[in-house]
């Protein structure tokens, strides 16, 4: 057994920052002592790590995925998916239709693979959280935290010349329809439009936690242990006192030496799918019965539109604009989301010569998607220690998405699209607005929809009332001492916009609460 104390063992590899340890160093069973152990290094975990490390806490971050640097992110799409995505991107919520979802599995979590959209929680959502859930989350109360996050991750509009043709076509269509379209705010410092956001930004422009909060946390003395899967939170009575885990090998399939971290405060920041599973594996329950329930997904669907003109959408920034015209109808946004050819080919139902003919027009494609604010919820069950999500797309949400698809098709035809391939199990194509009108006149069976998501939320919701919520106003689990939850599982409802900035602002607020009550958490 190796008992390590700060600053930890010397690095074997010179390429990684000091204080980042991986399976290459963790060759024996390890015991660590610290003030705060944080499970997860994404948008929920990394801000807490940086704020508390700067405040002088001794912080250990555990991350199941590996550590990669910007130089490791290449144009090899498939390799990036295998290395950066949990389960190679093949995670699925079971239901009708099944919903494919993606989570990051690397230092930096899902911020390494997201599009970087950085929006504050809409005021009306915060008002709902205040009114219905008793939370102290007015826009004024959260303002300093949003400001701080936006500074740290450099939230900014896109540089004009980084915007690609696919996004200009989206704007052309929205302008033709007279619809509200806005420039996207993203966590980027001069994004130059490599359009590889979802596969690790190879230019370093996207300010994921990998290149922002994690370096800051390390600078102020935090230690990051990658390739470590946490099995359970260790408890002493009602008090969380650390975590037990093991070194994850072979993409998580293999089990290496054990790691035991003893801490005064435990932070679970594993996302809305894995946080409830970690709590469940640790034998923790919520008297509300809400742990693992209330799963929202912001279901989204994509279409492929073919244009006569050259688009070459992979040269230019990802999602430079968002159409917000129909937010009041629960249709969150429309956006252009260029994808590499292999991912598009995978999503098309065509095969053989048909597939070839379609893919030959790859540089004439615009991929556009829409996001729906869902009104029904699913749940996460822990089966043999692994989480499994279940989610049934509600009839009314399917109707919302169908209306959204109709509107998005109209926009794309207004922009000059000659053909649109719709996200239904068997190839459905429309060639003009009349065909769209006819197709969408009748309900499309839910079973034929191809639905995906990257916004999982709500499985450990915050609230004043411990009989109806899992955590308190700051994310501390009711009826458990010193266990903070810091990720999108806290959201009482879906938020209609991309969740990263909300997660980061809530995490920063929670860190402030810990600092303000340092004696309570350090004793």
């Amino acid at each position: 057994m190796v008992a390590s104390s700060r600053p930890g063992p010397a690095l074997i590899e010179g390429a990684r920052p000091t204080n980042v340890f991986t399976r290459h160093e963790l060759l024996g069973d390890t015991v660590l002592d610290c003030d705060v152990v944080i499970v997860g290094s994404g948008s929920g975990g990394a801000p807490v790590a940086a704020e508390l490390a700067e405040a002088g806490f001794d912080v250990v971050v555990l991350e199941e995925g590996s550590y990669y640097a910007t130089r490791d992110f290449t144009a090899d799409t498939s390799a990036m998916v295998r290395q950066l995505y949990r389960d190679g991107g093949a995670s699925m919520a079971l239901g009708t239709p099944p919903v494919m979802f993606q989570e990051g599995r690397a230092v930096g979590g899902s911020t390494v693979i997201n599009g970087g959209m950085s929006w504050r929680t809409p005021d009306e959502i915060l008002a709902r959280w205040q009114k219905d859930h008793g939370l102290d989350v007015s826009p004024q109360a959260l303002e300093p935290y949003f400001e701080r996050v936006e500074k740290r991750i450099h939230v900014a509009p896109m540089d004009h010349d980084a915007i690609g043709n696919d996004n200009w076509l989206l704007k052309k269509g929205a302008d033709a329809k007279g619809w509200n379209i806005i420039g996207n705010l993203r966590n980027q410092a001069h994004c130059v439009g490599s359009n590889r956001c979802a596969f690790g930004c190879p230019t370093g422009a996207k300010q994921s936690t990998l290149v922002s909060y994690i370096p800051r946390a390390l600078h102020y003395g935090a230690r990051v242990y990658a390739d470590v899967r946490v099995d359970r939170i260790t408890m002493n009575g009602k008090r969380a006192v650390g975590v037990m885990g093991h070194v994850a090998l072979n993409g998580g399939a293999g089990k290496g030496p054990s790691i035991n971290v003893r801490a005064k405060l435990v932070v679970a920041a594993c996302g809305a799918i894995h946080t409830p599973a970690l709590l469940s594996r640790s034998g923790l329950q919520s008297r509300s019965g809400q742990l693992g329930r209330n799963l929202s997904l912001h279901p989204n669907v994509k279409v492929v539109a073919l244009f006569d003109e050259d688009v070459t959408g992979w040269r230019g920034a990802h999602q430079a604009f968002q159409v917000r015209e129909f937010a009041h109808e629960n249709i969150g946004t429309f956006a252009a989301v260029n994808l590499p050819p292999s991912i598009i080919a995978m999503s098309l139902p065509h095969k053989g010569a048909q597939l070839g003919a379609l893919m030959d027009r790859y540089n004439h494609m615009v991929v556009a998607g829409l996001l729906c604010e869902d009104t029904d919820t699913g749940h996460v069950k822990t089966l043999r220690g692994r989480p499994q999500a279940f989610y049934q797309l509600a009839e009314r949400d399917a109707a919302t998405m169908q209306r959204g698809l109709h509107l998005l098709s109209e926009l794309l035809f207004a922009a000059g699209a000659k053909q649109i391939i719709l996200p239904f199990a068997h190839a459905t194509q429309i060639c003009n607005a009349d065909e769209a009108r006819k197709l969408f006149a009748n309900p499309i069976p839910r079973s034929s929809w191809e639905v995906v998501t990257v916004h999982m939320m709500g499985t450990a919701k915050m609230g004043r009332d411990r009989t109806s919520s899992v955590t308190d106003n700051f994310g501390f689990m009711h009826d458990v001492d010193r266990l903070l939850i810091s990720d999108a599982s806290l959201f009482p409802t879906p938020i209609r916009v991309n969740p990263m900035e909300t997660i980061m602002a809530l995490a920063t607020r929670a860190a402030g609460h810990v600092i303000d009550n340092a004696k309570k958490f350090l004793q």
Partner: protein
Amino acid sequence: MTTWAAMTRAQVPTDEVSYQHSPTGRAVLLSLVPVICPVEAAGCAEAIVDHVALTLGAAPPLLRKGFGAGLATYDLGALPRYRRRARFLTGERAERYYDSWAHGPTPIHTQFAHALNQLMSLACYEQPEMAARIGYAPGPWIEEVTKKRLSVFRDDVRKQDAQILAPDPLRPGVYVGRRKKAGG
């Protein structure tokens, strides 16, 4: 038995799962290349099948097992109608058999055919020849824009890098820890 403590760094397993198709699975997948992939991909059939193994290696274990079982069933399922296994079907017969699954009698048939299509289409357009064919060349583009960022926007990039590390305590003047790292 090797103990962990005795292992050197070079012996530590990689981050990728090594997955290999069974001989049956490999043969079935090879027979499906002309059915699912465009004719131009014929020259990379072996590479496409290898790539499917890489993708499956990263997938959940249950999915890997299910896919392997599905391939065996798909192979045998051709016997009643064609008197030969799927791996030996060619041309129109191979296509008809695949379509009978894609529009099949149960959701399991259709979902498995769908999964086959997804995995092989992905693998097909991951091949450099196929990407080049459709004019997708992200490598040089990434190189070009990275250089641009580090030259045109050099000062702003440095400013942001410095901002990330600059002292900016959330609660100014409050340091609760036992020590503060030098430079912090």
